[in-house]
């Protein structure tokens, strides 16, 4: 009997000890919240007449690797924040991409207090909003002049969720413009005039296929091949489409009868799918396209004559190494018909959001406003002037060190961005166009972003077909007719109609407003 008692005492002791150990983490967190005296008093305008504010450390989580030389820049940023009497300092933590989404949601559900993080429609934004885990920012944005003005009105308007600003939209462009980066030297070698249409590009690719022995026509990563339907289409970058993307992969919206359909019924795509099939069979697209992961390297090594381009300020820069090849010249080709503006919903992919658990929301907004002042913006995004970069005119800069801050997590402001001085002329031109809100037409379904909660079982069943059917179809690996039929059968076979109906319902609600 006595021994049993001792056994239970031992177990109880072990249990309580481990409770104590696991409990420690929680206590630590609570402390950080407790010693925060002045929440959001000031409006962040640096006013030297104010008495120096007590500095509150704001904790941020962002995805990716820590930029090289980040400590030095962050130190400079924090010093300037102090000098400007904002009352905050930044504690920025980078989490690996691979588990960023999960880490943040786990931290949040575990009640960890942090002040800002990157969320996005492709991450957990809709769930976070639905569960009330992040806070609306409308009033706080309205009272911060620099922040409000550094982002175009269309962008503010189009990036609301349920009519509210749930995060600061971070983006540099207002719509997508796709095109090609091609080897200009090869084009000239075959006496071809400047390429202006998709048909011109096609002709160029076939010429390379026919005449070059070591250079192949076109390369793209298998994963990115979902862009091919948009790319190899005569309606590229125009409003002359009958179906537009809903931003739910594989589902499109008809402009004529306002119906949501699957990719198999979106007539605009027919031409693309047929071209992809043909290009794949003719060897314009690589036979290895399904597995290709090194398009950038292969193009830069001079093994291909053309690759994919997007006017986003990033894609074009990836191919500058190709210029090191003897005699190589590059050219950006963006087919565009000036008579018709492309549709854009002005939607951005990244948002700076403030979790409900943060006790310093006002202060976070003060910092965001402070970062909307050109000088401060440049300091965090490009580093210390003179050491990390130097200015080339008003809108360009020359990079001096390896410091590269992922601006999309915090600092991107359409009106403040500089382009690198080594950017291809064509790239710069198109990135600037893509950044101008007026270059685009407002998409009729602006404001729609899919909330899958009601049909999540069906949605979870349809999404794997993106990889297993839609991608091979876009890559040309699955012939157009067969692929479309297969996609339709598979998606409708697992209850895809319910997903379509739900998208329709949500779009109708947005359009009705």
């Amino acid at each position: 009997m006595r021994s049993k008692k001792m056994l239970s005492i031992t177990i109880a002791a072990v249990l309580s000890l481990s409770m104590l150990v696991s409990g420690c983490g929680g206590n630590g967190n609570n402390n950080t919240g407790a010693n925060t005296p002045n929440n959001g008093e000031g409006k962040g305008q640096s006013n030297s007449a104010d008495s120096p504010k007590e500095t509150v450390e704001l904790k941020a989580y962002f995805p990716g690797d820590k930029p090289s030389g980040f400590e030095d820049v962050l130190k400079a940023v924090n010093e300037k924040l102090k000098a400007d009497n904002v009352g905050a300092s930044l504690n920025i933590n980078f989490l690996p991409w691979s588990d960023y989404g999960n880490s943040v949601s786990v931290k949040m559900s575990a009640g960890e207090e942090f002040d800002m993080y990157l969320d996005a429609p492709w991450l957990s934004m809709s769930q976070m909003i639905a569960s009330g885990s992040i806070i609306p920012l409308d009033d706080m944005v309205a009272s911060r002049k620099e922040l409000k003005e550094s982002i175009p009105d269309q962008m503010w308007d189009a990036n609301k969720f349920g009519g509210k600003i749930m995060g600061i939209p971070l983006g540099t462009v207002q719509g997508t413009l796709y095109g090609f980066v091609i080897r200009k030297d090869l084009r000239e070698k075959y006496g071809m005039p400047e390429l202006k249409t998709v048909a011109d590009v096609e002709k160029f690719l076939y010429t390379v296929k026919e005449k070059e022995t070591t250079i192949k026509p076109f390369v793209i990563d298998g994963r990115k091949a979902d862009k091919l339907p948009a790319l190899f289409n005569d309606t590229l970058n125009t409003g002359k489409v009958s179906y537009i993307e809903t931003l739910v992969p594989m589902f499109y919206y008809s402009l004529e009868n306002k119906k949501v359909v699957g990719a198999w019924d979106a007539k605009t795509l027919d031409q693309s799918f047929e071209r992809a099939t043909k290009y794949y069979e003719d060897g314009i697209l690589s036979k290895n396209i399904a597995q290709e992961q090194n398009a950038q390297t292969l193009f830069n090594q001079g093994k291909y004559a053309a690759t994919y381009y997007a006017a986003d300020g990033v894609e074009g820069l990836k191919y500058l190494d190709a210029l090191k090849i003897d005699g190589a010249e590059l050219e950006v080709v963006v087919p565009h018909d000036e008579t018709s503006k492309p549709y854009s919903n002005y939607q951005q992919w990244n948002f700076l959001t403030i979790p409900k658990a943060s006790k310093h929301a006002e202060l976070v907004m003060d910092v965001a406003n402070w970062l909307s002042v050109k000088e401060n913006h440049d300091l965090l995004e490009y580093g210390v002037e003179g050491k990390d970069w130097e200015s080339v005119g008003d809108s360009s800069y020359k990079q001096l060190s390896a410091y590269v801050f992922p601006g999309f997590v915090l600092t991107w402001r359409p009106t403040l961005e500089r382009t690198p001085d080594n950017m291809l002329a064509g790239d710069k031109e198109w990135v600037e166009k893509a950044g101008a809100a007026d270059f685009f037409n407002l998409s009729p379904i602006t404001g729609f972003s899919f909330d899958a909660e009601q049909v999540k079982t069906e949605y979870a069943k349809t999404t794997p077909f993106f990889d297993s059917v839609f991608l091979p179809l876009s890559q040309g690996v699955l012939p157009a007719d067969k692929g479309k039929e297969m996609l339709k059968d598979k998606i409708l076979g697992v209850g895809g109609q319910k997903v379509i109906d739900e998208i329709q319902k949500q779009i109708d609600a947005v359009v009705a407003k």
Partner: protein
Amino acid sequence: MPNVRKRGAGYKLQQIARNPFLYGMAVPGLLFFLIFSYFPIYGILIAFKNYDFSKGITGSEWVGFRNFNYFFTSDDFWIILRNTLLLNVLFIVFTTLAAVLIALMFNEIRNKYFKRISQSLIFLPYFMSWIVIGMLVQSFLGGESPPVNAWIQNLGFEPVNWMFESALWPWILTIIRVWQGAGYLSIIFLAAITGISEDLYEAARIDGASKMQIMLRITLPLLVPTISIMTLLSVGRIFNGDFAMIYAIIGDNSLLYPTTDVIDTFVFRSMRQLHDFGMSSAVGLFQSVMGLIFVIIANAVTRKMSKESALF
């Protein structure tokens, strides 16, 4: 065997009281499992709830088995289940076979330096990340003209389009798995061999047994308990596809899905857009429960055949 007499809890406590430091050494380990393995079991609840960040685990609404629905009613459920089981069986069988062979061979090597160097070399792939291995595989078999094809053609055979032939991939993955894991496993077996009493070998040599006979009649039979325990341990994970491995090597190449898509990669693709904790936990729970059932069955079978080889 001596000491088979059953002893009560009183005797055990006496032992603990007598050797407090010895037993004390187990405390950190026990704590570790308690905190990281037993407390989190409570998270199983998520599989039966419509999990909501803001409401927490206890506050979220119960949904019964609804989270399991999408997985069990998916079109490809049977294919994925088959792939997961088949690949794991191939991995377990061939890795174990190769590891036993390697261990037996190493045991015969007498040159100390050669043995150490080759042991380290064969151990090395185990420390490579799957990403690196994936890139190696890609550079051997990928691209428009894979180097392996050049070798095959030099030998007078037809080239193979590796990235299209899904039928080949269970074998390719098995080869990669054996190359990566057999060296590591062989070290465990080698350690078990070292534990075999030298007396037995001496007696056998005096009786005039050949090297082969010693290997087959002494080393191998005495190695069986270790082999079966290692196998039982891997059977517990038979419903878990090795996500890191499969995704690093196959990636998004849908042409190879028919034979390589396993539960973990499938769930990853379904959840890429949805981020639903409930649904992913449901699948995780299914994998664990099935793993447990398999271990119990395999253990019972092993017990029937040889008591010492069983896990419990």
